[in-house]
């Protein structure tokens, strides 16, 4: 099966891969990089119209879009990790680079890599698999029905670990007709190795992006983990044991349950979407030694730990270039625009998702820095009034921190969080900002490394 067909398009890893690889080809990301730019206006109009449909229809459309891009369970054994790796590395231009990143997905890292003009290879990809007849609130049912497909995937791909993930909160609509198989490479794929050897000269730095986020799991097999929930609005305890917010959410969605019934957790593992699986380090160490590269490690506990670091790096870089650095672009999940970030002279601050905890962290970032004249906010619209979702009114508080212009970018406040068009409108609105700046030459890697080494939010291991 074609690798591009097996991998989810509307996912963090692929969204970030598209944003960064398009940036390295000197392109922005119209239509999330999914269709020709010429179609942006008509598709935007269509999606804007669709956002006005009745709620039930919109929810069906979300579910249908998930199902449509998922792989039929019978075809899962055809997926080959080597082809996935080739598909990923094929996105990037081939040219010498002083540094490359490999490992965890992270939106702030995409901006770091963009500033340096260098690639990042994800350790994790999402393979959505079709599934019928299981309610989103039935994690055990999901595992029972899709486990054979998971086992077949692992049998065919000994270099992968499967993090079968079930988030009945934020993925409610998407998992109506499919399940989430997130796979992590525990061995370095040959296509990744070839790409790195073609890109990194002797003396270059290979940086392992190592997010230490962990989650409760049920161990299904030696390389098969079933993860309870995801990072976002609900806490791990709420997924495991429920609570008033979960009960209210289930009532809201007409479920007859008042808590979810995950199989008992018997351990923790790197978080399916963001966490780094350290088994890969062995191959990376060998490869770096053989090629005379320095193997550095960028370690942080949670995905958003890197966001203020990269935001401040950009601000100091703008200051050195004599630009005001008074614009902040708050991005969310896979909504990333590295090209327009630099052209508009914006400081990028990335949020993992649209929940209250991300809003609080963004506010606390703003508490600690000089105020911005302009703040633009992109919000990912996932279609669900999920536990812990921050409301439009809550977000206005953040926008109110701007001295001059605090505006939603691409968000239809009337239809959020059920607003398909937001995904498309964000780039269009960014591209209309007046007063832009020329694209800078890449940031020098030693400057960036010195900056990273000083920051307390992250552990920087320079390696040898």
């Amino acid at each position: 099966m074609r690798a591009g067909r097996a991998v989810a398009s509307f996912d963090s890893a692929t969204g970030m891969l598209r944003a960064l690889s398009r940036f390295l080809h000197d392109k922005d990301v119209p239509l999330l990089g999914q269709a020709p730019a010429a179609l942006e206006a008509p598709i935007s109009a269509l999606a804007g119209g669709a956002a006005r449909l009745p709620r039930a229809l919109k929810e069906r459309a979300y579910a249908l879009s998930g199902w449509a891009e998922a792989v039929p369970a019978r075809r899962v054994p055809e997926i080959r990790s080597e082809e996935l790796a080739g598909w990923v590395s094929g996105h990037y231009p081939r040219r010498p680079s002083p540094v490359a990143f490999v490992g965890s997905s992270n939106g702030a890292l995409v901006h770091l890599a963009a500033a340096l003009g260098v690639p990042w290879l994800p350790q994790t990809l999402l393979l959505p698999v079709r599934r019928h007849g299981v309610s989103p609130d039935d994690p055990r049912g999901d595992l029972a029905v899709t486990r054979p497909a998971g086992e077949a995937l692992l049998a065919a791909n000994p270099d992968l670990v499967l993090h079968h993930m079930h988030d009945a909160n934020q993925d409610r609509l998407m998992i109506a007709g499919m399940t989430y198989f997130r796979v992590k490479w525990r061995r370095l794929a040959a296509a990744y190795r070839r790409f790195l050897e073609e890109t990194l000269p002797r003396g270059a730095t290979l940086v392992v992006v190592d997010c230490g986020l962990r989650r409760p799991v049920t161990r299904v097999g030696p390389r098969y983990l079933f993860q309870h929930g995801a990072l976002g609005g609900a806490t791990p305890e709420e997924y495991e044991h429920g609570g008033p917010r979960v009960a209210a959410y289930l009532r809201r969605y007409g479920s007859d349950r008042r808590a979810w019934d995950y199989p008992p957790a018997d351990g923790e593992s790197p978080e399916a979407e963001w966490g780094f699986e350290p088994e890969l380090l062995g191959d990376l160490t060998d490869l770096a030694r053989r090629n005379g590269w320095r193997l550095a490690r960028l370690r942080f506990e949670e995905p958003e730990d890197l966001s203020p670091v990269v935001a401040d790096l950009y601000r100091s870089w703008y200051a050195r270039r004599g630009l005001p650095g008074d614009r902040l672009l708050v991005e969310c999940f896979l909504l990333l625009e590295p090209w327009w970030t630099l052209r508009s002279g914006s400081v990028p601050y990335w949020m993992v998702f649209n929940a209250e905890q991300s809003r609080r962290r963004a506010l606390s970032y703003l508490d600690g820095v000089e105020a911005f004249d302009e703040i633009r906010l992109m919000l990912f619209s996932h279609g669900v009034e999920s536990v812990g979702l921050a409301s439009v009114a809550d977000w206005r508080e953040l926008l109110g921190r701007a001295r001059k212009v605090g505006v939603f970018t691409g968000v239809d406040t009337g239809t959020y969080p059920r607003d398909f068009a937001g995904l498309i409108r964000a780039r269009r609105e960014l591209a209309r900002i007046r007063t832009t700046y020329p694209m800078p030459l890449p940031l020098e890697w030693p400057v960036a490394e010195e900056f990273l080494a000083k920051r307390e939010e992250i552990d920087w291991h320079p390696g040898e």
Partner: protein
Amino acid sequence: MPLEHVVRTALGLKVAGWRSRGPGPAVVCVHGAGVSSRELLPFVRALGATHDAWSIDLPGFGRSEKPPRPLTLAALADAVAGWLAGSGLERPCVLGGSFGCQVAVDMAARHPGSVASLVLVGPTVDARARTPARVVGQWLRNSVRESPRMAPLNVADYLDAGPRRVLAGFGASMRDRIEDKLPHVDVPALVVRGGKDRMVSQSWAEEVTRLLPRGRLVVMDGLPHMVPYRDPGGLAREVTAFLKEVTA
């Protein structure tokens, strides 16, 4: 509460004004091209609950005296400054609507010290759309979202002013390079844009705010160009909050 009707002389011309006397500091509203205070009166009533709210008819428009020749933009701004000087109001806030923003900005830039703050509601004309064809196109696209009850008021205004003055007003609005004056406005300024305003794009409203040294933008979701007529209460709340912040 009924509005007070006050006629005062500025630069030798009789200028008509309406007032709703509230407790807070004075706010003087200036209308758009070709029209008059008529469309602003619901807003003056709403703002009168908290502020000493005024609206004046520019010379040549509405109930004000008509000079023999239409006044230029600078002359209109001077007339407003003259009116303010004679009003006894202590450095009020001036609120412009549409073309009224251009008058207010010209006045604030050329008569520093005359106002304490500005509110620019739907500031025209986008520097990138300053051709008659584009402005007419934008006006048509915007008009479908305006209240149908406003149309008879517009017609009455156009009849009051006569075609020569209406055209002169639009001409003055098209020739004005407001973007060059905005950096010279040294008072706090609130820019208000209706989220569905087709005459004032989001990017232009942002640019106007950016160019104002002490600007701040508020977008009122779902509203067309004539925010004061469409949502007088909502705009009054925004203006009240802004003035509270400015005077704090």
